[in-house]
């Protein structure tokens, strides 16, 4: 990788080290519990254990990632993988240090993604802007290194795959229908293998129902405890202003599991309705991509699809907006208009923090 990128990585890592004593949300405790859970229990118990309110509700690959992290943890900081979560003996909690350092280290994948996506850019100035927008992203700093999550790592995977898709032009170009079909089948196989590796063990254990229930907690309500600025909030506000709402507002925004009825006046919104709305919103983009697949637009399209999911999805977290803000950072340098879109979106999402 080039020196310039390393410089940005170095400075931002200094800042991450400085941020280690800052505020931590319950997400920190959640991830700590998962670390101990995946380390102490066999996979067959990962999705059934209910000894703590912080039950595992991310897909199996993330659980495997936590398991990988627990391997060094059990050597370096044994108290981190203890399911009883012992209190730290000194004022500097070694578990906090370990967890914070895993977030900072896993960001290396994000940097790899940035490197792959910017490698082809000719001008150093453009690359520098991308480094600033993504490597130094204040949103990621706040959500990952203060609030505590692993978004940098996950977005890194996204950026790497986007970079591969963009590069795909050379491979895809000019192939006949038959070759195209073959590629399609090959891609299908790859996707299938990944899913099989991820969910296979749980199919084997006969726990698919349980895993899916954890991954898609429809009982948590339409909106998350901290409202994401999406369509449903506007709808809710309209209902609140114009009509009498019989359901109490508190249940509407419940963050924990529990069925809640929402709109009294508006028609009942079910997960299926939100899914259909998302599909309708995405369809113009999908149609365009189907008619004229252009690798250079892939980032924009993916970001658009994420935005649709964010606006109309069921139980969306406000942090989900990272998924379109970060990839758009790559597009923002293309024109003034793109830069403006990026700026508005990132400001709107920032004041939710």
């Amino acid at each position, binding site marked *: 990788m080039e020196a310039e990128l390393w410089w940005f990585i170095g400075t931002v890592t200094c800042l991450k080290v*400085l941020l280690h*004593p800052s505020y931590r949300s319950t997400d920190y405790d959640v991830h700590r519990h998962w670390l101990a859970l995946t380390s102490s229990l066999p996979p067959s118990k990962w999705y059934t254990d209910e000894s703590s309110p912080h039950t595992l509700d991310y897909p199996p690959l993330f659980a495997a990632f936590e398991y990988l992290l627990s391997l060094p943890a059990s050597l370096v900081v044994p108290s981190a993988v203890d399911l009883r979560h012992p209190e730290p003996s000194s*004022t500097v909690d070694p578990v906090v240090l370990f967890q914070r350092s895993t977030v900072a280290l896993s960001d290396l994948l994000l940097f790899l993604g940035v490197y792959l996506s910017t490698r082809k850019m000719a001008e150093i100035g453009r690359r520098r802007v991308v480094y600033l927008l993504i490597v130094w992203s204040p949103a990621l700093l706040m959500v990952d290194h203060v609030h505590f999550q692993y978004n940098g790592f996950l977005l890194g995977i996204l950026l790497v795959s986007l970079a591969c898709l963009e590069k795909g032009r050379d491979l895809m170009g000019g192939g006949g229908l038959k070759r195209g079909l073959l590629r399609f089948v090959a891609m299908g196989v790859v996707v299938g293998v990944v899913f099989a590796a991820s969910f296979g063990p749980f199919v084997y254990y006969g726990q698919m129902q349980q895993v899916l229930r954890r991954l898609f907690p429809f009982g948590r309500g339409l909106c998350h405890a901290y409202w994401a600025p999406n369509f449903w909030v506007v709808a809710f506000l309209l209902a609140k202003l114009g009509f009498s709402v019989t359901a109490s507002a508190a249940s509407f925004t419940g963050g924990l599991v529990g069925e809640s009825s929402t709109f009294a006046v508006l028609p009942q919104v079910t997960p299926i309705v939100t899914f259909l709305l998302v599909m309708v919103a995405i369809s113009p983009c999908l149609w365009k991509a189907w008619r004229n697949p252009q690798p250079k637009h892939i980032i924009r399209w993916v970001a658009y699809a994420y935005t649709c999911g964010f606006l109309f999805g069921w139980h969306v977290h406000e942090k989900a907006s990272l998924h379109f803000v970060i990839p758009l950072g790559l597009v923002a340098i293309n024109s003034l208009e793109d830069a403006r879109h990026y700026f508005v979106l990132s400001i709107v999402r920032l004041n939710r923090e």
Partner: protein
Amino acid sequence: MRSAAAEKTSRMETPAALAMVGLALLVRVCVSMGPYSGMGNPPKYGDYEAQRHWMELSAHLPPRDWYRNGTNNDLSYWGLDYPPLSAYQSLAHARLFLLPFSPDSLALRSSRGYESPFSYCTHSLSLPSLYLLLSSDLLIFFPAALSFVYMYQAAIGRRQRSGDGKADDSVVTWHLAMILFNPALILIDHGHFQYNCISLGFTLGAIAAILSKKDLLASLLFSLALNHKQMSAYFAPAFFAHLLGKSLKRQSPVFEVFKLGLVVLLTFTIVWSPYLYSMKAVMEVLSRLAPFERGIYEDYVANFWCTSSILVKWKILFSLHSLKLLSSGATILITLPSMVQQIKDPSDLGFLYALFNSSFSFYLFSFQVHEKSILLPLLPATLLALREPQLLGLIMHFALLSMYPLLCRDRLIFQYAALLALFVLIFFRINGSHIKKKESSPAILKFLMTMAMCCSFTLHYIYMILQPPEKYPFLFEALIMALCFSQFAMLTVYTNMKQWMLLGISSEILMEKKNI
């Protein structure tokens, strides 16, 4: 033509400078989230409790009782030992930020060791205490640094530039970054918890005023610095010599000196007004400011007295009085050459060297020096960053090493490492490409430097990992001090030589002008 171009560049620099200021603030906020001196360590706690205690005192007692032992003011428990301006600052902070929000934290006597909402280490960032430190930085140190950087470009930078006369934005921004990202200053102020940014900020403002030829403003600002922390006197010889030298070159030297003296006298009178009702009251305050009974040095300082005490037991061999004389004599002797140079030939650049030389000789030879006093010579070293980048790199490294045992005690190791790394990253970012490489130094010097660096890294590591032998519990501290002192002694010889070499250069320029 040229001034128009300069104007344009200075407008171009603004966003970069603002970004620097923002980043510097962010770093300060981050460091202040970490531990501080004496955290959770009763009964005396540390400097953090001292600052809180002074706010408590100044908020509840009349000024004349601040420095006097009494029922409500136990001088043995963090008695006020800075000049009145420091106490006024405590009063202002107490009134503005703390009394309205959490009066409990400043309750007379009962609030000792109060840590909770006042501290921000409890993961609930308490806003008042954050404003406290940031306001001192934002109101005093940052504006002073900004004005200095621009004044430097106007007074010294332009002369240095080659033919095209174009000021490079990035050079100005880099210079600003060197001043704002001084890791030692951030660690002591926002980690350990002190208000050096105020007295150093006033000093920096005074230096900027001198560069812009406003000598009266400079003497006002420097008097304020002296009245905030008496340690600012480390710079006094340089200010005195430079202003005297300049006045002597004017038409009516006596009148010039009189004007400057009047400003100083007036400032002092206003600041000390609550104590001027009797000589006894003044002496009371003064005796608090000069705690001679605390010995010639405290803890482990990389200065002459502490380092040589490994061989010569000064504290046993000499009486307190003779030590006082000895140390003042040595300090004056070492400061004298740079003062003479400034009186003979006062110049802006020479003044910056003189500031460095005089504050460094005070650090190395004067009475009752703390390890934190290294911040004073560090300030002129950052100001000279464009002229002496290698000097800055060396002294910053060894200044941090000399404070390493202190910061270890404060549990600020992560902050130490991160700030040092950040400084190194910024230091080499532009330094490599924009500043002309000096002619390569002799091989023997390079070898010595490399050796010193290796020793430093080993000592960092040893101090953190190993337990000292029981017979010599302070062995590692002593080693660190000896290494730092050897480097500091070399540096001070070098900078004194450089200052005197300036004399040669400026007279050469004069000769050339005359010839033309």
